């Protein structure tokens, strides 16, 4: 057991250690300062020329958003086209069919918004062409979109008054060429040398040692898995995602994949401090996020490594932990760590089945997605946190009777309205979606019998989890839910769209509005935001808005299940 706990300590420790220098590097790259990676300059200039981009042209926050939304529209059309026709396109050795329109809609949205909720299984529901040219493509570019939006906010928060916030395409392209591609390549190399496939042959027929006939699915797996983690996308090549022994063959690949998905969200926190030259502010943000993360991690590791009490009651040995839905090569502790990192960060890949986790672990995973700001997805996690900071500044300003200011800019009614709308949108989407689904199910349990794999409280948790995952743009699931139906495809599709673009538009707008305001130098009357006191304030704002809003729903699902299970 100790070797297992030591394992997750090593994974987390090495991630933090590498995130700090990467954060400094990101700040350098985005500021356009000299960096060792400038040898990529000619390639970038070529891409600007081919794309018709004028990199020196600076944009206002509105122009940034128009550029962002326009290119997303083009990608949506491309994704719909590929998914609806994949059966007739090349690179389909297994002869998998095209997707139905509602499933294609859900999948296209899901990958477009960096969510990667999957209502299909990769082995039978996608082709190599759609995996590489549609899904993996979106995994690269949507991660870069999140990073670019984040940098627009960084830029707007510098100590000056301006309308001009840099060029969107430059931030976007540099995120790919200077960060995502090189690191993804390194991760993919580790994967192929550990046995992850990267080939184009179809599934292999196999007669096993004891004489059963089966097939073994393969494909260009390693390239996709690397960016799936690094871009906090989470959509796996195979149905079982990173639990699949070809997608995640060893303890080392598990550590590297888990490292990759935490790396950039963490690095962006440090990049913020270096970018605006206030590293202390980054330490505050990192501290708050880490406290929240550890509060969710600790109970999950405890319950997963202590096993299922109902099975212990039968007399079986539970010393290895609760292993339903888990792989022996990772063990209970690394599976718990993976589960929490993938839900506080909106990656949503799985190396064990969350539906089979203990109730408290399921609740911690839900809370990770409900707060969605303890690290959070690439770029967007920081944007979510920024919204909470604005709210905390306003509330604490009122509490101590000072004008609410953040980084020398006054926070006024307009910014607050935007922040509150963004902060409350998330609970609204989750709770309204779950309420409607629960209402439908209860109204006609026989018609919707295929929805839930588990009865009672846990069945409710399955529906709650699906909307939480959609709204957090997470993409993991309580996969027992029979979700490839018209209702789930369309309703989660709509939730995903709203929950992606409004939380990007809102913070960029706030930052853009702040950038235009007069800069007020710090004085004795300024509320300091880089202190522990303010950190505690932000933490409680997150806790009250993002966690307590969900308490009644959590009480009906995981909490009720927990007390039933442990009552005997």
């Amino acid at each position, binding site marked *: 057991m100790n070797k297992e706990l030591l394992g997750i300590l090593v994974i987390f420790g090495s991630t933090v250690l590498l995130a700090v220098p990467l954060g400094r590097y990101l700040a350098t790259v985005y500021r356009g300062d000299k960096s060792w990676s400038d040898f990529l300059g000619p390639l970038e200039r070529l891409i600007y020329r081919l794309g018709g981009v004028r990199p020196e042209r600076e944009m206002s926050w509105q122009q940034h958003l128009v550029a962002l939304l326009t290119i997303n529209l083009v990608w949506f059309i491309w994704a719909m086209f590929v998914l609806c026709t994949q059966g007739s396109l090349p690179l389909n050795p297994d002869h998998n069919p095209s997707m139905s329109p509602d499933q294609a809609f859900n999948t296209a949205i899901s990958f477009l918004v960096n969510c990667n909720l999957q209502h299909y299984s990769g082995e039978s529901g996608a082709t190599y062409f759609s995996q590489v040219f549609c899904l993996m493509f979106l995994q690269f570019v949507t991660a870069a979109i999140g990073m670019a939006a984040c940098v627009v906010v960084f830029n707007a928060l510098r100590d000056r008054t301006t309308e001009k916030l840099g060029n969107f395409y430059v931030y976007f392209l540099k995120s790919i060429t200077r960060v995502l591609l090189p690191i993804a390549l390194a991760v993919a190399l580790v994967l192929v040398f550990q046995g992850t496939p990267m080939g184009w042959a179809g599934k292999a027929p196999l007669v096993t*040692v004891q004489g059963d006939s089966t097939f073994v699915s393969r494909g260009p797996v390693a390239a996709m898995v690397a960016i799936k983690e690094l871009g906090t996308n989470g959509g796996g090549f195979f149905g079982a995602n990173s639990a699949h022994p070809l997608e995640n063959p060893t303890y080392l690949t598990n550590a590297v994949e888990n490292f990759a998905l935490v790396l950039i969200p963490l690095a962006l926190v440090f990049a913020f401090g270096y970018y605006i030259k206030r590293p202390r502010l980054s330490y505050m943000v990192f501290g708050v996020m880490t406290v929240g993360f550890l509060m969710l991690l600790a109970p999950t590791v405890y319950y997963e490594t202590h096993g299922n009490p109902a099975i212990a009651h039968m007399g079986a040995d*539970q010393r290895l932990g609760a292993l339903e839905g888990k792989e022996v090569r990772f063990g209970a502790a690394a599976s718990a760590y993976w589960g929490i990192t993938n839900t506080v960060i909106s990656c949503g890949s799985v190396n064990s089945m969350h539906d089979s986790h203990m109730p408290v672990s399921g609740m911690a995973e839900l809370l990770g997605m409900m707060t969605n700001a303890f690290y959070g997805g690439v770029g967007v996690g920081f944007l979510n946190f920024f919204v909470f900071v604005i709210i905390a500044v306003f509330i604490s300003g009122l509490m101590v009777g000072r004008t609410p200011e953040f980084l020398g800019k006054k926070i006024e009614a307009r910014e607050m309205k935007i922040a509150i709308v963004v902060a409350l949108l998330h609970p609204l989407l989750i709770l309204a979606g779950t309420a409607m689904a629960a209402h439908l199910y209860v109204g006609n349990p026989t018609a919707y019998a295929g929805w839930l794999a588990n009865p009672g409280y846990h069945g409710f948790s399955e529906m709650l989890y699906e909307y939480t995952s959609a709204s957090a743009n997470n993409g993991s699931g309580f996969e027992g839910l029979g979700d490839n139906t018209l209702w789930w495809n369309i309703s989660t599709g709509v939730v995903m769209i709203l929950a992606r673009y409004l939380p990007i538009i809102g913070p960029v707008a706030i930052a853009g509005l702040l950038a235009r305001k007069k800069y007020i130098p710090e004085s004795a009357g300024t509320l300091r935001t880089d202190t522990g006191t303010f950190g505690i304030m932000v933490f409680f704002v997150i806790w009250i808005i993002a966690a307590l809003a969900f308490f009644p729903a959590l009480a009906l699902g995981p909490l009720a299940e927990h007390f039933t299970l442990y009552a005997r």
Partner: protein
Amino acid sequence: MKSQLFIAFRLTLTLLVLCCVAYPALVWAAAQLAPGRGEGVQLSRQGRLVGFANVGQKFDKPQYFNSRPSAADYHADASSGSNKGPSNPEYLAQVKARLDTFLVQNPGVKAADVPAELLTASGSGLDPHLSPQGALVQVARVAAARHLAPAQVQALVQQHVEAGLLGPDKVNVLQLNLALDALAPAGR
């Protein structure tokens, strides 16, 4: 807006070449030097493909070390977990049945010696491993079915325990069973 659309379109085409042609081509080229040459590490016996080293397969006969229960029945083109919740009564009845079956098939073994993975389905349905205890608890049955000395079979298991610096110790069931067949051919 119109010029943005134009840029979006051209940039998309360019990035498709960079991210979806150049990048996978590089990874594919590297894979040609890796074990399995990017098509999965294959194991053959007397020239016949018998499995992939990392992909678990079904073993439920008494003369083999049995692999874990699987929601996918070890079909490696349809990976899946059971997704059963921890308090689901139907699921718990199934676990109990697995435990009872195991105790009948392995006379002399006590419930407290049966580790968790032998009663639960893995996340992928293709878990290639057991814990060392999960293999050791089957030694008596396998040895009896093959008319081997238990000590000899136990030594074979010990040789196949993979203990890393971090993470759980484990045994690859396919490789263990292949070694077992080499020691004493099956079916007798």
